[in-house]
């Protein structure tokens, strides 16, 4: 019997790579959902066009789930990085998730996997050094994509309580790095001169893209219900990360950096600089213990993940 797995957000990094990995496994039927057909679709993935921002997305999704007899839905239709289109981001990430939850309830999908982020805990000076999965999700008031995810997670938690028949897995990876992963964070870290906050040097935690995909793959194919942080072992101060990569830093006093609204985040993310730079000011390290017990230890530690990412970056610069 062929188990069918539906993946929303097929064009996102995680969606595409997860589909490629699952396509190699025998006995799976894969349905990829997105707004547009991706280039170079992995063979064995059936594409269905769905726009989660449309008001009728719920019933369209439910139709697909019903027709294909979908057993697992992996929800990855989130922005990889914030866009200046605040309304659009909210429509996709929060309302889109609502449509998806409605569709899952309507079609009676037995298993749902949701991709979130440890950024939902938010950087706060009163965070403990390690945030467990039970910690309240405070997000950051000026990071609109994080706020969308916080709202999405609340809806998923409510929904899970009301639908005991569905097993829900929420995965919260921390910042992903690796040879091929690109987003606003890796772009920030890849600058030649990296602006940092003068007087602050927080401990950061990273996860390698392969480790992250391993966890998503296991969550899609096996039964693991609950909320899990997906993080690597170990923490590294920001200054050490940058030094290891041979970057020069430009320490700027936080009040100055926060007033430079056009540089560099405002234009690209639509958020005030705090929305990003507070994540480089206070602790928001997540405790990975529960995830490691469930999915096994990651191959790369934070430091090794970073080394893998920067060695790939160096190779590219020689091209």
């Amino acid at each position, binding site marked *: 019997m062929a188990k069918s797995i539906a993946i929303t957000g097929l064009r996102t990094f995680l969606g595409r790579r997860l589909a490629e990995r699952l396509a190699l496994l025998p006995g799976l039927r894969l349905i990829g959902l997105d707004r547009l057909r991706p280039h170079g679709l992995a063979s064995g993935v059936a594409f269905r066009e769905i726009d989660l921002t449309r008001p009728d997305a719920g019933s369209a999704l439910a139709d697909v789930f019903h027709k294909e007899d979908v057993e697992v839905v992996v929800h990855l239709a989130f922005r990889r990085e914030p866009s200046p289109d605040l309304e659009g981001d909210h429509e996709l990430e929060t309302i889109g998730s609502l449509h998806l939850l409605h569709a899952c309830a309507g079609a009676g999908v037995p298993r749902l996997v949701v991709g979130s982020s440890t950024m939902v805990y938010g950087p706060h*000076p*009163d965070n*403990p*050094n*390690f945030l*467990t999965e039970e910690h309240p999700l405070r997000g950051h008031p000026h990071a609109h994509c994080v706020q969308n995810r916080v709202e999405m997670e609340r809806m998923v938690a409510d929904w899970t309580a009301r639908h005991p028949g569905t097993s829900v897995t929420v995965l919260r990876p921390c910042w992903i790095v690796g040879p091929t992963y690109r987003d606003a964070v890796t772009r920030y870290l890849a600058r030649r001169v990296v602006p940092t*906050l*003068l*007087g*602050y*040097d*927080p*401990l950061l935690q990273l996860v390698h893209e392969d480790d992250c995909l391993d966890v998503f793959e296991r969550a899609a194919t096996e039964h693991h219900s609950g909320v899990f942080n997906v993080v690597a072992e*170990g*923490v*590294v*101060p920001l*200054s*050490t990360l940058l*030094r*290891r990569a041979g970057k020069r830093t430009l320490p700027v006093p*936080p009040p100055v950096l926060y007033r430079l609204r056009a540089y560099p985040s405002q234009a690209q993310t639509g958020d005030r600089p705090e929305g990003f730079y507070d994540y480089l000011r*206070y*602790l928001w390290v997540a405790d990975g213990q529960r995830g490691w017990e469930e999915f096994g230890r990651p191959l790369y530690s934070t*430091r090794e993940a970073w080394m893998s990412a920067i060695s790939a970056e160096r190779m590219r610069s020689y091209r």
Partner: protein
Amino acid sequence: MSGAESGDLWTEALGGLRAELRRRLAQVRGEEVEPAAVEAGVDWLALLEDVRRRFGQLGMRERSGEVDDFGLDPETIRSARLLLDFLIKRWWRIEVLGLEHVPDDRAVLFVANHSGLLPWDGLALAEIVAARHGERQRPRFLIADWLITLPFVQPALARLGGVRACRENAERLLGAGHSVVAFPEGVKGAAKTFRDRYRLQRFGRGGAVRLALEAGVPVVPVAIVGAEETHPILFKVETPARALGLPFLPVTPTFPWLGPLGALPLPSKWVISFGEPLASTGRETEAAADDLLVARLTEELRGEVQRLVREALRVRQGVFT
């Protein structure tokens, strides 16, 4: 770039400089010089690059890049040791009493009186225990919330073994086998004015005792005398402090009059006295759930620390001697 190569660069540059000086000197004396016959080409750009690289190496040396889960960097501690040793032995001439009460084979919870705005007391206590029982037994001291928001202070304290004071952190540290230094008086202890020195404030809400009971670790009461005089707070100002986002702005004999220099601790004489570990009953988890018992034990602990403080004050003759 190898050492020999960069060495050559330096000799070359200095040689060029010397030749140039000699030529100028000769010109001043009015001697005949064949113009620029000995002029050596100096690659000033390469020299600059070399200097930059040396500075870079210097910066790299003081950090290992390997911090533990709580941000402690052994390399930072190693480079700070000279300063800490000076502070402990020469500046404060710390007299240590009862160090034999500290078990060297297991994690303990040190409970001490708190004083001084910067956690010099926790730092000194951790250093003294680590010097006796080795780095592996270095206790982590808990630091108040408002220090976490301070630039420069927070990263420095974290590399030296400071951890934000909260229940989750303390539990995790004790669970990982690290000793913990707790100051149950909290900000109330650090912020008391000079008039109230060595008068112990309320011990929080009994969190320290409950923590020790739940983790099953012995409690070692500690009195730290002398830290009160490092930053004697004459009075506190609140209105301008709020604009800076601080709970209060202390006014000491040196701060804010001397600016950042005022943050340097005064050379008071210190006594650190360790008491006997409080015996554990063996029925810890039940006891931890009993609020009244926890409150009583907390009060007993406060009495014990206060007694140690009074004893230590008698040992010390004067504030600076």
